C-alpha cells in the first residue's frame, strides 16, 4: 500500500528537480559525496550487492552481481551504459525520472562509474524522448559545471564523464547488446552471447549496462545504506519499484510502490483510481506488453518478482496495462503481434518470420477468415519461436498471446467463427 518516493524524489519534493539547486536542496549529491570521500569502489560494490537491487529494465537480474562480473584486469577501459531506450508498450517510468529528476540518474551513473572504474559513461536514450534528452543534457551540463561530472569530481581525483546518445526509434535497442551495437554506430541488432557485455561490451570492453531506474535507485541506497533498502520488500524483491499504469483506469500514471506490500488490486483500484464506472476488470499485462496476460482471478497477487512469477506472469518493466470488459482480447493480441512484427530486427529467423506469421494469422481471425485449426497451429508455433532466438524479443511476442489464448479461448473461438467486431471507443469517461 505505501508509496515511497525514493527514485521519484521530485514527488517527495513536490516539484520537478531540474535545476541543480533544487536537487541539492532535496538532498541530492549527498550520496555521491559520501561515496567519493568515505568509500572505495569495493565498499560501493558491496553496498550494491548487499542491497539486493534487481535490474529494473525487465529481466530483474541482481545489479550488484552484474557489476561484479566486470573483469578487473582487462587491458580495455570499462564503460557504464545507462539503458534509457524505454520502448516497452505501457512503460513510461524512466521518462518521468529523466524528465523530472535527471540529476539523481546522473548521480547514480557517476557512482556506478566510480565503482567499476569507468571514466566514460553513456546514456542511450530512446529516440522519441527528444524533450527528455534535452532536459538530461542540460542537467549533465549543469552538473559538469558544478564539478559533479567530468574530471576530478568534487576534488576527489575521480574522473567520470557522462554522454547522452539518442537512439533512432527501435524497440530492439532496449536489448542490451543491440543497444551496444547501436551505440557503436551500427545497425541495432543483438549480438551472440557469450561473451556477455560485462566481459566484452561496448567496443569489446567490459561494460556495465543498467536501466535508468536501476541506476537512479543507487543514490538513496548509498545515502541511507543497503540495510535500509532491505527493510522494504522481500528478501528476493527488496526495495521500491515504479509502476506505469495505463489502459482502462481512471488515473493512469506512474506509482512508486514498495515491493510485495501492494497488490495488483490496490495498484489498479486505489492508486490508479479504479476502472470507469460500470466496467469490470478483464485482463492486465502487469509488467509491460511482453509478459503473459492475467485475468481478474490474479488481482490479489502482491506486486513483487516471486509472487507475480507464481501467478504465471512477470514483473517485467512494471508497465501495467489494464483492460476492462469493453476491450477485445483478440484485437489486443493482434495489436501486440503487430508491434512485435514491426519491431523484430530480423536477425534470427524464428523471430523475423514467426512474428510476421503470427500477425497474419491473428489478422485473419480478426477479419473473420480464421479456422479452428489456426488456434492449434499458433500453439504449435509458439515453442518453435520462443526460446529459439538470440534475444528475448520473440519470447515477449509469444508470452502475452499464448496466455491470451489459454485464458480467453472462448473469445478466440468466437472470433474464429464470427470475426471480431470493432470495439466501442476506448475512452468514454473523463480521466481524473
Amino acid at each position: 500500500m505505501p508509496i515511497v518516493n525514493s527514485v521519484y524524489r521530485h514527488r517527495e519534493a513536490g516539484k520537478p528537480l531540474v535545476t541543480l539547486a533544487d536537487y541539492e536542496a532535496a538532498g541530492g549529491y549527498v550520496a555521491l559525496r559520501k561515496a567519493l570521500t568515505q568509500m572505495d569502489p569495493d565498499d560501493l560494490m558491496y553496498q550494491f550487492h548487499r542491497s539486493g537491487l534487481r535490474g529494473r529494465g525487465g529481466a530483474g537480474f541482481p545489479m550488484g552481481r552484474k557489476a561484479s562480473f566486470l573483469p578487473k584486469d582487462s587491458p580495455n577501459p570499462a564503460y557504464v551504459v545507462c539503458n534509457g531506450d524505454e520502448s516497452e508498450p505501457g512503460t513510461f517510468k524512466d521518462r518521468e525520472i529523466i524528465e523530472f529528476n535527471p540529476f539523481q540518474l546522473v548521480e547514480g551513473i557517476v557512482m556506478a562509474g566510480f565503482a567499476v572504474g569507468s571514466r566514460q559513461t553513456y546514456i542511450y536514450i530512446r529516440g522519441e524522448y527528444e524533450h527528455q534528452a534535452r532536459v538530461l543534457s542540460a542537467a549533465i551540463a549543469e552538473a559538469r559545471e558544478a564539478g559533479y561530472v567530468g574530471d576530478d569530481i568534487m576534488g576527489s581525483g575521480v574522473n567520470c564523464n557522462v554522454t547522452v546518445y539518442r537512439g533512432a526509434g527501435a524497440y530492439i535497442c532496449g536489448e542490451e547488446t543491440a543497444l551496444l551495437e547501436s551505440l557503436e554506430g551500427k545497425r541495432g541488432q543483438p549480438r551472440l552471447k557469450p561473451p556477455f557485455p560485462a566481459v566484452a561490451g561496448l567496443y569489446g570492453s567490459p561494460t556495465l549496462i543498467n536501466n535508468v531506474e536501476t541506476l537512479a535507485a543507487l543514490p538513496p541506497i548509498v545515502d541511507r545504506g543497503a540495510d535500509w533498502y532491505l527493510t522494504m520488500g522481500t528478501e528476493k524483491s527488496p526495495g521500491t519499484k515504479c509502476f506505469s499504469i495505463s489502459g482502462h483506469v481512471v488515473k493512469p500514471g506512474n506509482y512508486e510502490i514498495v515491493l510485495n506490500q501492494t497488490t495488483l488490486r490496490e495498484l489498479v483500484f486505489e492508486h490508479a483510481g479504479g476502472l470507469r464506472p460500470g466496467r469490470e476488470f478483464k485482463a492486465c499485462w502487469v509488467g509491460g506488453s511482453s509478459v503473459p496476460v492475467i485475468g481478474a482471478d490474479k488481482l490479489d497477487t502482491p506486486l513483487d518478482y516471486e509472487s507475480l512469477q507464481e501467478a504465471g506472469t512477470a514483473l517485467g518493466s512494471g508497465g501495467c496495462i489494464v483492460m476492462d470488459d469493453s476491450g477485445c482480447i483478440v484485437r489486443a493480441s493482434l495489436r501486440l503481434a503487430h508491434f512485435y512484427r514491426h519491431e523484430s530486427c530480423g536477425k534470427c529467423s524464428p523471430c523475423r518470420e514467426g512474428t510476421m506469421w503470427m500477425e497474419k494469422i491473428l489478422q485473419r481471425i480478426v477479419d473473420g477468415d480464421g479456422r479452428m485449426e489456426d488456434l492449434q497451429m499458433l500453439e504449435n508455433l509458439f515453442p518453435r519461436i520462443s526460446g529459439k532466438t538470440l534475444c528475448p524479443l520473440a519470447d515477449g511476442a509469444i508470452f502475452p498471446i499464448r496466455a491470451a489464448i489459454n485464458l480467453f479461448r472462448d473469445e478466440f473461438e468466437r472470433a474464429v467463427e464470427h470475426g471480431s467486431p470493432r470495439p466501442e471507443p476506448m475512452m468514454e469517461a473523463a480521466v481524473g
Partner: protein
Amino acid sequence: LADEKPPEKPPATDLVKLTINGRTVYAKPGTVLVEAAAEVGIEIPIFCYEPRLGPPIGACRMCLVEVEGMRGLQTACSTPVAPDMVVHTNNEEASTAQDGVLELLLANHPLDCPVCDKGGECPLQDQTFKFGPGETRFVEPKRHFPKPLDLSTVVALDRERCITCFRCIRFSQDVAEDGQLTFQERGAGTEVATFTGDPYEGRFTGNIIDLCPVGALTSIPYRFVSRPWDIENTPSVCGHCPVGCNVEITQREGEIKRVTGRPQPNFKVEEGWLCDKGRWGFPAAWARTRVAQPMVRNEDGTMEAVSLEEAVDAAARIISRSASTAILVGTDATVEEGFLAAGLASVIPGGRVSRMGIPENPGLDALRALPSAELGDIDGADVVAVAGGDISDQHPIVELRLRKLTRRRGTLVVIGPRPQVMASRAAESVRTPAGQLSVGIPTIAKTLQGAERPIVIWDEADLAKEPDAAAELARVIATSGARQIELAAHVNSTGLRAIELPIESPVDAVAANAVSTLITVHADPVEAPGGARWDDALREVNDIIAIATHRTHAITHASVILPALMHQEQEGVLVSTTGRAQRLRPGSHGPENAAAAWELLIALSHRVGKPLPWRTPSQVFAAAAETHAALDGLSHDSLGVLGQPIKRTTATSPAGTLERREPAGKGLPAVFTTEIFGDNTAWRSDAVAALRTQAALRLSPGEAATQGLTDGQHVRVTSPFGSCPLPLIVDEALPDGAAFVMTGPPTAGAWGLMDIDHGPVRVTLAEVTT
C-alpha cells in the same frame, strides 16, 4: 552414414572427449559443435555459419541442438566443445526446432524453385529435404517485390528469396571490407542493399553469389542459363593471373557456363574466394577476336580457311623446308606446352626456343633464392611487408589475405610508387619516388626487426627494373629470417622458368634474317615490351606459324593460323606465383576446329617426321619432371586437385650489392600498372564490359601543369622503344615527377614503351594534335 561407424580415434591428451548422438567424439579444444559433429559424419544443418567470414553470429538458428545440462537449445555453430559434453542433434527437441526454423524460413520464401537458378544446388532445398517439414501450413500471401533488382551489372538480387543469413553482408563488411552491403528495413521486411543505393561494385563482389545459401544473389551472366542436373562441374585453376586461384568450371553440353569458387577451397591459395575477373573472364572464349578457324596463306597472299588437319600439314611443310625455326612461347603457355616447344625445337633443323616474360637478373635471383612462403602462410605471419606492385589490381586475391592480417592486428607495411588500397590499413606505408623502391626498404627493415614470423611480398616487374633495390631487399629478408612471396608478372612465367626455357629473345636473329620460320605459342611479341623492334623484325621472317587463342598483331602476318584452346578448355599444369604447380582440367570443349597447343606441338613433331614420344599432357609432364630439378618427383597424379609446390632451384647468395639501373631515355620515369579490368581478359569478356578500363596516362595535377597538359587530352607518350597515344587522366592521388601508365589491353600499345627486357624507361609527353 550414421550406421557406418568409423573406428573411434584413440584419445590424445590435447583432445576433448564428448558424446554426440551417442557416439564418442574427440575434438580439439575450441572446436565448435558443427565441426566436431562433421568430423564423425554427423551433419548439423547450417545457413549463416561460415568460418571464412569470421566468428559465428548465430543468426539463422538452423543449427539448434540439445546440450545436456544447458538451458534451452544451443546453436551448434557457436558452442565450443567441452569435456564430457553430451549433445543430441537429432532427438525430438532438436529435430522439432530444426524443422520449425525451416518451416519459418520457408513461410516467406517463394517456392519459385522451378525457375530459380539455385534450384537443385540450393542449401535451403537440401536442408528442407533432410531436416524440414513435409508440408507448409502457411496459407497467407508471401512477400513480393518487383524482380529482380540488379545489384550491379553482374549480380542480381531477388529480395523475396533472401533468408537474411548475413553471409553477403559479412563478406562485404568483414572480408572484402568494402563497407558497401548492408541490410535495410527490419524484421520480415529486411532487404539486402548498398548503403548509398549505388550498384555494388568492387573486385570481389561475385563471392556473395557463392556464399548465398538461396537464390537471392545470382550471377547475371548465368541467369536462366542452365539447370543443375544438366551441368557438369570440373575443378580447375584460373588462368587469368599468376595467383592460381582454384576454381570450379561449370559446363553444359561442352560449353563453359560459369566459374565459381571451389566448394572445397584451396586454403593455401585462394581460400575459396575469387576476384570478379577470374569469375567472369570465361566469356573471353567467344570473344569477337577468338581464333576458331584454321587458316593457311595462299600463294597470292590471301588467307584460306582449311581444316585443322590441313593447317597442321601446311605448318609441317613450312617447318620441314625451313633452315632455321624459332619457337616463341608466351607466358600463358602451360608447363607441358613449354616443354614440348623445347622438344620440338630440339628435333627440327635449326630449331631454337625461347620464352617471353621478364629476364632473370642477379637481383631477382637473390630474392628467389630465399626461403619462400605460400599465400596461406600469410595467415600465420605477424608482420607482412609488400614491396612494389599493385596487389589490388594485379594479384587481387592477395589483398583479401592482407585484410585478414590487419583484422587480426598483424602488422602490414607497404612500399611502392603507386597508390595502394591497403596503405590505409598499413602500420607504415611509404610512397617511394618512381624507380626508387630502395627509399622504402629501410622502413621494411625496421618493421621486420623483432618479428617472429615475417613475410615479405615483392613484385617481379618492379624489382626487375631496380636491381639495387632487389639486392638490398634480399639482404633485409635474409637478415630478418623472413620468407618471401614473389608477385610474378605473368600467368605461368614461374612454370616456364622451372623447365629452364631460355629467355633470350630471338628478335635480333629474326631481324638479321637468320630465322626463316617463327612459331608463336600463345605469344604475341609485337603487343609486348619491345614490340616495335619485333614489328620491324617480323618483316624479315619468311613464315609465321601462330598457335593462338585470340587474334593478335602477329597473327596478321601469319602463314598458318592454328586455333588453340584456352586454359578453361584444356589440360596442363600452371605454376602459380608462389610456385604451386596446379592442374588445369578442361571444363569446356572449345571451338570445334581448335586443339590444345600441346596437341598441336605433338602433331607438328609427327608431321615433320620427328615424333616426340608423348601422347598426353600427363606423359609430357612426367618427362619434364624427370629432366628438371624444380619439378622433381611431381606428376599429374601427385598434383591431385590442390597441387604441390615446386622445388626452389635458384641458389644465389644474396650477399652482394648491385648497381642501380638508370631508366632509358629522357623525361619522366614511367610506372606501369595493369588495372584489374584493363587487361586482355577483361577486354575480351563481355560479362565485365561495364567494368572495363582503358589504357591511360595518369599524372598528378602538379605534373600535368608542369607538362602543360589538361585532363581528358590525348597525349603521345614516347620512350626510346616505342610511342603510343593515351588519354590523360589527372589524378590527385598521384605524386609529381612520374608518368603512370595504365597499360590497358596490349593492343593499346603501352607495353611497347618498354624494351624486351622490361627495363626501366623514361617517357616524354606531347599533346596529340589533330
